[in-house]
């Protein structure tokens, strides 16, 4: 009697980190500009670039990417309003404005864009209740609170928004389980939790979180296969190895996860033939899951990778170079 828990069937292969294959995979991805996947994901290209270069940087192979071309693309995508679009011919949005800033910070090339314009664009998206909309069309989501504050923190321009109000809004999204949702009254979800904790870490307000309660909810994301899901009764997914893990890291509960089982799940999600990581063992790979698989491994102490910052999902050495500081419990 009872419902069978949703999980994947126990898969054990591959069981070591295929670094060279992943480098190959990302390089090939960057070069396949006519590829179906590449073209059809043009609407998120800026984030795609950020996933690729961050993955390469973590592996110590950033030099294999064509920096000049990438920086040119970012510059072209800044619109008159100051915001950045995912690609040419698309409208600007906060999501891609953050990705652009992350890319330029990694390359130490912020001077190619109009930084004041970026700041103006981001600050204008704050609403009266402290929330942020994604663009002029008005969608409110705590993801956007994170995008805004992370962007401004990297630019050392948090003064441009009402930080207190931003915090107030994020806290109004706190739920009975200690987690956070998209808006006030929304169900807790690991992705939103990462975003809200990110805001609190940037602003030094992590004590407002019930770390024991949330830590329990987060570590309960781990399933028998070792993988993590995003909320109860869902399948495990490698990207949650990032959203959940970094959340645990921010509240000082990283040790509440079974590290070895999670590592084996992440490694099993690699594709031995093509390189890259998929959402779960046996599925098709993509750069998104490749970054988060590697990022998760870094957080879990994989020495072949650079240390990652749990708030920004960028190499810690980049964050250090920028002299940006965050609170971690």
């Amino acid at each position, binding site marked *: *009697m*009872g*419902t069978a*828990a949703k999980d994947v069937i126990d898969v054990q292969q591959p069981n070591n980190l295929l670094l060279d294959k992943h480098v190959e995979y990302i390089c090939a991805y960057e070069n396949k500009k006519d590829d*179906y996947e590449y*073209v*059809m994901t043009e*609407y*998120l290209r800026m984030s795609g670039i950020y996933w690729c270069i961050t993955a390469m940087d973590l592996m110590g192979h950033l030099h294999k990417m064509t920096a000049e071309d990438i920086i040119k693309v970012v510059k072209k995508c800044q619109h008159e309003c100051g915001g950045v*679009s995912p690609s040419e*011919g*698309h*409208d600007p*949005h906060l999501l891609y404005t953050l990705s652009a800033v992350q890319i330029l910070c990694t390359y130490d090339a912020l001077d190619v864009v109009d930084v004041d314009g970026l700041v103006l664009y981001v600050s204008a998206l704050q609403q009266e209740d402290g929330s942020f909309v994604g*663009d002029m*069309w*008005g*969608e409110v*989501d705590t993801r956007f609170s994170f995008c805004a504050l992370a962007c401004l923190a990297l630019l050392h321009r948090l003064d441009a928004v009402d930080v207190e109000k931003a915090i107030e809004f994020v806290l109004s999204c706190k*739920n*009975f*389980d200690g987690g956070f*949702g*998209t*808006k006030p*009254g*929304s*169900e*807790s*979800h690991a992705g939103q939790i990462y975003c809200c904790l990110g805001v609190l870490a940037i602003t*030094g*307000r*992590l*004590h407002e979180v019930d770390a024991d*309660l949330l830590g*329990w*909810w987060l570590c*309960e994301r781990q399933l028998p296969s070792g993988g993590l899901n995003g*909320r*109860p*009764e*869902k*399948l495990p*997914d490698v990207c949650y190895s990032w959203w959940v893990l970094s959340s645990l890291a921010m509240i000082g509960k990283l040790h509440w996860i079974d590290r070895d089982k999670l590592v084996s799940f992440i490694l099993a999600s690699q*594709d031995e033939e093509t390189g890259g990581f*998929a*959402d779960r063992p*046996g*599925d*098709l*790979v*993509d750069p*998104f*899951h490749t970054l988060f698989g590697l990022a998760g491994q870094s957080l879990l102490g994989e020495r072949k990778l650079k240390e990652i910052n749990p708030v920004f999902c960028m190499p810690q050495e980049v964050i250090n170079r920028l002299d940006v*500081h*965050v*609170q*971690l419990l």
Partner: protein
Amino acid sequence: MHGRLKVRTTAEQQELKRQERTQKLNKFQAGFNRASQKRLNKEYDKESLLITGQLLAANPDVSTLWNYRREIIQHLLDVKPKEEAQLLCSEEQEFLEACLRVNPKSYGVWHHRSWLLNKMPTPDWKTELQLCNKFLEYDERNFHCWDYRRFVVKQSGVSAEEELEFTSDKISSNFSNYSSWYYRSKLLPVVHPSPDGSGRAAEDVLLKEFQLVQNAFFTDPNDQSAWFYHRWLLGKGEQKLEVDCLYVSLDPPKIIVRLTKPVKVGSNGVALSVSVQGKQLSNVHWQNSASSSLYGSLWVSFNMMYATY
């Protein structure tokens, strides 16, 4: 990007797939370029609706196309008489429902729908609530749908009692209903507020919930939602701000205070004052032991030699 199984195919099958995809790709690019051209020319006509509709039905995450579609609809709403405007909106509702049947979890589709409902001359909120009921039947955990439902409830003034009733129905038909239990946690304190003004739900109501949730996990001990809800019911109230622990040293003069919760001590925060045998010390300054935040629960006095009565 999620849930796509890697399937082994023959060279023949791969070639067929490649051709199919090239066709799809070309069609999409042609359509997108045409739409972009029309948008540049500020063309907000039937053809624009047709093209964006075809593209978005298959690619609902291309938000730029939704943006253009909103510009088209806004223009048409501005120029059409009321009945035609209302008709246009109903047709858009149907279009969106078709999109949702294919992609019930697209942020773009749900957001466009809420934008539309705010623009409609005469919105029918009952229909919107029915839509939510339908999609929650398909997938009780669809948080996009729950968020949309809360938007509809707010706009149309559906009572918290009615919504509480809805969660009861959902839970009685299937205990494993994390989203419903969660919604309940928000509705209970509104429908049955505790008389002490704490913001929590009334005690007697919480005890009834206790019964309900116990039934849930006795029926199915593996039902996670019940256990999380159970923990919430047992939860403690607000922690009072008090001195938890005090350390005093005379030589060198130093006081360390540990509080029950992190606060900001100082001019625009909490005031910590020290009295010795009834006489208050002034010029006592406090330093937060936690350097990464303005807030902390451990505060240390400094420059105590300058403190005076």
